[in-house]
């Protein structure tokens, strides 16, 4: 417990946490605005020329998206993309700081049991993620009510699937902190870890989607399309989509993928840290 307190103190006594929080909340506003425009022009009131000649699967997906439950989940979990990225970066920084500022020595002198240190970091990072999720959700809930009401749609906030999406979004925030810590232990260089994680998070996700889609259509192996859900960022999206949309796996597949990533990176990282010489 005192280790977790120590880790919180580490986060609290530097500037990083509030810079990240401000960044995440600033981008939340942007993301909500983009999502609102997207829903308005893309789903609720699309211009006629956009829907003309649309393939039937896509039209089906579109009408599924227009359901209040799907809409509400989508809007309430706005900001997830950047929020998760910041939580991951914070996780990375809590670990790589120890090497960057050479405080690993001090930390491991106070606590020779290194696994306990990593667990404390995971706990502190997870709580930071959940706090960010709470603040984010406290902002998106009223904003979603206002937006959907102005669109003439009754928000489905009380719906079990929407509540589930909101809670799973919280889980995503916590798990991404763990993924960040796992990445930080694997790649000790602060710059190296940060850049690798951001590239994989942004470009990597898109690249995998494109490659998978191209391969799927070339080889005509439909199952191949599901490979993209193994990417953690798409998995968290899937987990919080509320309803099952056509052409997508179930939400819990996303949750499993995400937990898998957090466990695997954390486990490998912890094993490495236990045996690594600190000098």
């Amino acid at each position, binding site marked *: 417990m005192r280790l977790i307190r120590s880790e919180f103190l580490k986060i609290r*006594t530097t500037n990083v946490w509030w810079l990240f929080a401000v960044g995440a909340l600033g981008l939340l506003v942007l993301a909500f605005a983009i999502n609102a425009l997207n829903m308005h022009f893309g789903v609720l009131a699309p211009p006629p020329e956009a829907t003309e000649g649309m393939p039937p699967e896509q039209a089906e997906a579109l009408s599924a998206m227009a359901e209040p439950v799907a809409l509400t989940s989508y809007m309430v979990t706005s900001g997830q993309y950047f929020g998760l990225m910041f939580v991951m970066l914070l996780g990375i920084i809590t670990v790589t700081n120890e090497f960057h*500022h050479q405080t690993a020595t001090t930390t491991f002198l106070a*606590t*020779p049991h290194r696994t306990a240190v990593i667990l404390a970091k995971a706990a502190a990072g997870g709580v930071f993620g959940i706090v960010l999720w709470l603040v984010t959700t406290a902002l998106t809930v009223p904003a979603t009510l206002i937006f959907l009401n102005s669109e003439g749609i009754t928000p489905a906030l009380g719906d079990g699937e929407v509540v589930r999406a909101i809670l799973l979004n919280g889980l995503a925030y916590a798990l991404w902190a763990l993924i960040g810590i796992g990445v930080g232990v694997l790649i000790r260089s602060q710059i190296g870890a940060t850049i690798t994680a951001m590239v994989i998070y942004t470009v990597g996700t898109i690249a995998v989607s494109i490659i998978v889609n191209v391969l799927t259509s070339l080889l005509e192996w439909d199952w191949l399309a599901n490979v993209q859900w193994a990417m953690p960022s798409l998995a968290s999206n899937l987990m919080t989509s509320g309803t099952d949309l056509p052409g997508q796996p179930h939400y819990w597949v996303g949750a499993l993928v995400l937990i898998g990533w957090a466990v695997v990176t954390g486990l490998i990282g912890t094993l490495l840290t236990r045996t690594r*010489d600190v000098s």
Partner: protein
Amino acid sequence: MGNVITDGEIVVSGLTKQYKQVRAVDGLSFTIRPGRVTGFLGPNGAGKTTTLRMILNLVSPTAGSATIGGVRYADLAEPLRSVGAVLEASSAHKGRTGRNHLRVICAAAGLPASRADEALELVGLTPAAKRKFKGYSLGMRQRLGIAAAMLGDPRVLILDEPANGLDPEGIRWMRDLLQKLAGEGRTVLVSSHLLSEMELLADDVVIIAAGRLVAQGPVADVIGQAGSVGSVRVRTPRPDALLAALDGAASSRTEDGALVLTGVTAEQVGDAALSAGVAVHELVTERPDLERVFLDLTAGKEAIR
């Protein structure tokens, strides 16, 4: 709580660290006694830092073991209450204040946060407590490191090159502090390559070279064992007359014309000069110093391997 060591003896036995290419530490064994300041000496690259890090469970030994009060560092229930260590000058987050740096450690070690302020007071950093670490001078960083080591009021102190970056006043301060702490019965192990400083500070020395033990024991014993003998330096306008009066003392001349005599004491030289009526302008007993002994003992051991 509990399991705070009562006896601060450090025992290193057969400690070995093999890196890919280099055997940094090679079958090293020594004992460090409580209540004394022990200087841990060796040329750069001798394996001092690796040894200290193995004692502290930061580097895992290839073979051998190290215990503090009979317990491995990793098995100490409250390590910071037993052992304080200062390993490198720049070991705090640049953007964190000195006080917060210490409070983070207090939290992890289960010590009250008030210990942070007490430790800052002890090392004279109270005025800079709320300043960020990046604004600290090298000397202030070294003091902060000592403050961190003292948080748990430990029986054992291990310091790696603590004099680095300190000004003469800071070195004097540290020497007094370490001697006071040893006087309270604590074990103080200090690595250094500053031999003149060690001769003033240390009661015992452990000298290593190329990862192996070269000598250990009280400073005077080590200097005695090394076989370097003392000499007497004398300056006189009539050196030949003095040499004739001394009869049998081995001599040599320094570049500026002084005689260096071995096998005689300063008293004998003075008496001989008086009876021979030779004027003496300077008469000094030169003891072999730690530096001389150190260079003799470590000569021929490659520093860079």
